[in-house]
Every structure is written in structure tokens, then in C-alpha cells.
């Protein structure tokens, strides 16, 4: 409920100022669509570089998102339901990848998992090399994108009334069953929204991937890296891949919004 006065008259400077930011976001994005033609778009996206980048991106982001969900869901549930020593620490740690520059994350990953890195040197002895592989792309994406899933999932579990879980227990359900039949279904919209957000963040990953996985076509060159490479040789390709990324991001946002709204059905 807004204030009646604000609804009727409004504050005029606010009205004008609040147009600026949406315009500022919209203009470059629309420009992106204007400088290309559908024909050029199709041609450029059919190029070897774009196709390989697209396939690699879909593969890596899907794997990364699955990893975020598999590792993030139990964590989010524990953070939501249990108060333990060091919870705030874990909470902060999990949020950190959102705030640190992705390039820094990439350097950190390299120093940890590189051939001479803290863990990497042992992996190297075992014959496993991670940097500059497709696996490194996935790892960079999980590192950067997982907080988005964990935060959303935790908020989702927080919104589930713990009484319902207790009652389910008195009705004979094991904690495992309670989790799957009460907690997850009730947190589902948040879990799905978190999944979509984590996927979208994986899609736009650049800095950490660049540092840790490099820019090798077919192996580590995802869409964002392909745009950068294309900018140096063929602007049309860069624009086409950018438009494609824009469409994917928009679709992800719409799906996330849609799912967030269905939450109200259950309250």
C-alpha cells in the first residue's frame, strides 16, 4: 500500500529521475539489436567460432549449475535450520565470491589448483592438470555462481515454517523424508529461482574463467570469451554472440521472475 498522496500527485522530480536509469540500461541494449540484421545474426552465429562457444557454454554452465544445486542445497538447509558455531563465518565465506573481483577469484583458483599451486602440485603428481581445461571453466563458474544459488535456497528454506517439519516428524516421517516431502516442495520456487540465477551467472562468467581456464577455442572459450576474441577480428561476430547472450540472460530472468511469483500460491 503506497501513501495515497504519493499515488495521486507523486513527487515530480522522482518521476523524471526514475526514468533515467532504465533508459541508461535500455539504450545500449537496444543499440546492440539495431546494429545487426537478422540475416547477419544467423550467418555469424552459424560460424564455427560461435557454435563451438555456444555448445561449450551450454555444457559447462549446465554442469556448473548442477554442481551448485547438489553442493549448495544441503549447505543452504543446514545454514537455515541449524545454529552452530561458525555459521556466520560460513555465511560470509559463501557470499564472498559475489563481492570479490572475478579476476581475483581466477588468480586464487590458479594459485590453488595450478601446476605449482597449493593443491595443484599434488594433483600434478597424480597426473591431473586442471588449469586451461574445460574442467577449469566449470570450476570457475561454480566458484562465482554458487553464492547466488545458496542465498536463494537459504531464503527459501527460511520461509518454510519449521513447525510443518516437526509435525511431519510426529506423523512418522524420517528427517530425510521430511526434507523431500515438506521442506523442498515448499522451498521449491526459491530453489528453482536460485538455480536459474546461478545458471545465468555462470553464463556471464568471464574474469575467473579467463585467468584460470584461458581462452582456448573449443576447450575453454565460452560465449563471453568469444565476444572478446571476436572484437579484435570481426565486430559482426562479436555483436551476434552478444545478442545471443542477451537473449539467454533475458530468458533466465523471465523464468526466475515467473517462478518467484508462484511462491504466493502456497501462502
Amino acid at each position, binding site marked *: 500500500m503506497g501513501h495515497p498522496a504519493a499515488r495521486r500527485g507523486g513527487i515530480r522530480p522522482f518521476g523524471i529521475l526514475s526514468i533515467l536509469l532504465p533508459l541508461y540500461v535500455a539504450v545500449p541494449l537496444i543499440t546492440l539489436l539495431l546494429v545487426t540484421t537478422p540475416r547477419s545474426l544467423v550467418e555469424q552465429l552459424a560460424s564455427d567460432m560461435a557454435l563451438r562457444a555456444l555448445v561449450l557454454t551450454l555444457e559447462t554452465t549446465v554442469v556448473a549449475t548442477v554442481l551448485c544445486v547438489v553442493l549448495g542445497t544441503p549447505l543452504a538447509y543446514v545454514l537455515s535450520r541449524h545454529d552452530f558455531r561458525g555459521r556466520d563465518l560460513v555465511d560470509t565465506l559463501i557470499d564472498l565470491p559475489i563481492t570479490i573481483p572475478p579476476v581475483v577469484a581466477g588468480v586464487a583458483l590458479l594459485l590453488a589448483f595450478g601446476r605449482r599451486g597449493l593443491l595443484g602440485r599434488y594433483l600434478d603428481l597424480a597426473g591431473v592438470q586442471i588449469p586451461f581445461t574445460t574442467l577449469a571453466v566449470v570450476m570457475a563458474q561454480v566458484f562465482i555462481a554458487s553464492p547466488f544459488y545458496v542465498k536463494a535456497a537459504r531464503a527459501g528454506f527460511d520461509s518454510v515454517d519449521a513447525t510443518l517439519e516437526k*509435525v*511431519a516428524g510426529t506423523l512418522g516421517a524420517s528427517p530425510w523424508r521430511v526434507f523431500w516431502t515438506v521442506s523442498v516442495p515448499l522451498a521449491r520456487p526459491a530453489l528453482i529461482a536460485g538455480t536459474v540465477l546461478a545458471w545465468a551467472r555462470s553464463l556471464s562468467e568471464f574474469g575467473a574463467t579467463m585467468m584460470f581456464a584461458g581462452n582456448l577455442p573449443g576447450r575453454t572459450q565460452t560465449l563471453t570469451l568469444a565476444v572478446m576474441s571476436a572484437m579484435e577480428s570481426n565486430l559482426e561476430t562479436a555483436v551476434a554472440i552478444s545478442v545471443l547472450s542477451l537473449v539467454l540472460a533475458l530468458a533466465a530472468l523471465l523464468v526466475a521472475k515467473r517462478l518467484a511469483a508462484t511462491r504466493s500460491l*502456497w501462502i
Partner: protein
Amino acid sequence: MALDLLRVKLALSLGSFRLDLAFEVRPGETVALVGPSGSGKSTCIAAVAGLLLPDSGRVSLGDEMWCDTDTGTDLPPRKRHVGFVHQDYALFPHLTVRGNVTYGARARGEGRAVSLSKANEWIERLGIVELADRPVRELSGGQRQRVALARALASGARVLLLDEPFGSLDASTRAAVRSELRTFLADVRLPAVFVTHDATDALMLAERISVLEDGRLSQTGTSEELLARPQTRFVADLFGLNYYRAVLAPGRGLREARVGSVVFHLMTDHDGSVALAFPPSAVTLSSDRPTGSAQNSFRGHVREILPLPDRIRVVLDCGVTMAADVVREAAVTLDLDPGRTLWGSVKATAIQVYP
């Protein structure tokens, strides 16, 4: 369905609050745990359900030990077969009525068909067949309660625990739901414990009432026993009784007892420290000094006038505070008004005197 005795003995501390009590519930008996908020009544049934572990104590049903802190026995809630009906019923919002009622049997490992037929049986018994396929968010308070009961019983509950079962109902549906629940509890013949802060709920529903004050049972008995002989000021207040304490010199028959600045005339053979109790309905009000046979007449002024559904309660300040109930018509003939001077009289034989 086995009919077993529920035995509970608990002690636990939560911060500075300490709960320490013991009670039993016979099969088919309904016990009310009555107390003010913060008296520990919800904590108590949570411990019976296994939702929290007491510091020490024992909970058993029949010969099955649910919790014994001496031996370290502590069955999880799911193995206790309690039907826990939460204050706001805690129905699963993502399931239909039938989905809710089927939940317990499924959770206990029954097949789909068996679970469904069990659920349908209870859905029918509680008269919610026409609601069965509705989402629970569309239900009214009374309907929710029936679903919660059906869900608890279809899960094979052998004890019913109800936490403020009328707490979230409005006054208009409360009476109807209460009598519905009473019929139902008599029908299922399970030990049942319900928690309430409302004396009417307890009087209407329970065969036995246990009053909980500050984590301890201050009195347990039938409604008649509690109404006739409240043991504490809280119990008396709960049922709206007049209650005083006095010290009697040795003697028999008609005696005098001083309470505050007034003297009561009593019929009793008790000596020493005694309690006096009588209901407001035993007090007669009049504008002039009464000439009848009542041995106790006190002059005082009206402090409060409380309209009740079928009568008016008048609180009189006459050296002691005394409540009197009069019929509505009397309000006119007595010219009831705060501050007005009236006489209140009670027969000596109407006053319960007990140690």
C-alpha cells in the same frame, strides 16, 4: 488400536524457567493442561511428543517407554505415534486435504492404496469428504481442525496432543468446534491431552483438569473438584470463584473467620489455615440491608460491572473483593452503577471451607 495409559514425568530448565511435573492420562480420558502463557504447558506436550528432550524424566505409553533419561531412551517423534495437533493446525500448504491425511501412513511405509483407504476412512469419519480434494488454504478454522485430527489419526496416533486447539478460532466458531471436538474425543477413546489458557475450554472438554503455574501443577482434579475447592488464587481466578484464606481457632459448627477487614460466618469442623471458596452465583445483591437467612452480609460499593453472555458479574468492594452474579433484570432493579453502594450476602453453608 491399543488403549494404553500415558504416563508423564518431566523436569527441564529453559533459561531461568523450570518445568517440573508428573501426570497420567487414562485411555479414553481427556486431560486439560490449563495455565497462563509462559507456564510451560506447550513445552510439556512438546516433550511428550518428543520434540524436545527433558533434563530428566520419563514418558511412557502402556508398557512402551518413549523417553527415560535414566536409561538414555529417547524415541524420536516419528516412533512415538502421537497425534500432535498444533495451534494453527500446521497443515501442509502444498497438499490437498486428502494429501495431508494420507501423509502419515505413507511416511510410516504403507503402500499407496493402503494409505489412501486409511485416509479416506478418517476423512469420512470427520465429515470432510466434500473437502477432500480441496487445497487446504481454502479451508475455515473449524475445517482445518478436522483435517488436522484426521491427519493425526490416520497416521496411527495412539495419543492425541492438542496445543491450544481453539486458539486460532474466532468466538463465533469456537463453541461449535469445541462441542464437535468433544464428541469426537469421546468417540476415538484415546488418551488426549490438550493445552489451553481458557477455563471454559477446559470445563467443556476435559474429564480432568491439571492447572499449571510457573512450571508446576498446582492442582489436578475433575471440574467439580476444582470449582468446589480451588487450591490456589490462580485456580480460583481461572474459574471466576471467590477465594480467601483465613485462620480458624479450634471449634465445630458455625464459626467466625476474619478475612481482611470483614468477618465470615462459616459451617466447618476444620481448624487452622483454611481456604474459603464460593461461586459468584452464591452471592445475592440487594440495595438495602438483607433480612433473609444469610449469615454473611457485607456492605460495599460496586467496583466493576462485567456483562457475561447470560448474566452480569458485579465486583463488589466490601472490605474484601467479592464477585456476584445477577440476572440481567437485576441491573435495573438494583440500579447498577460503578460506585453505588450495595449489600452482598452469602449463606454460611454455601461457602466451601477446606484446608
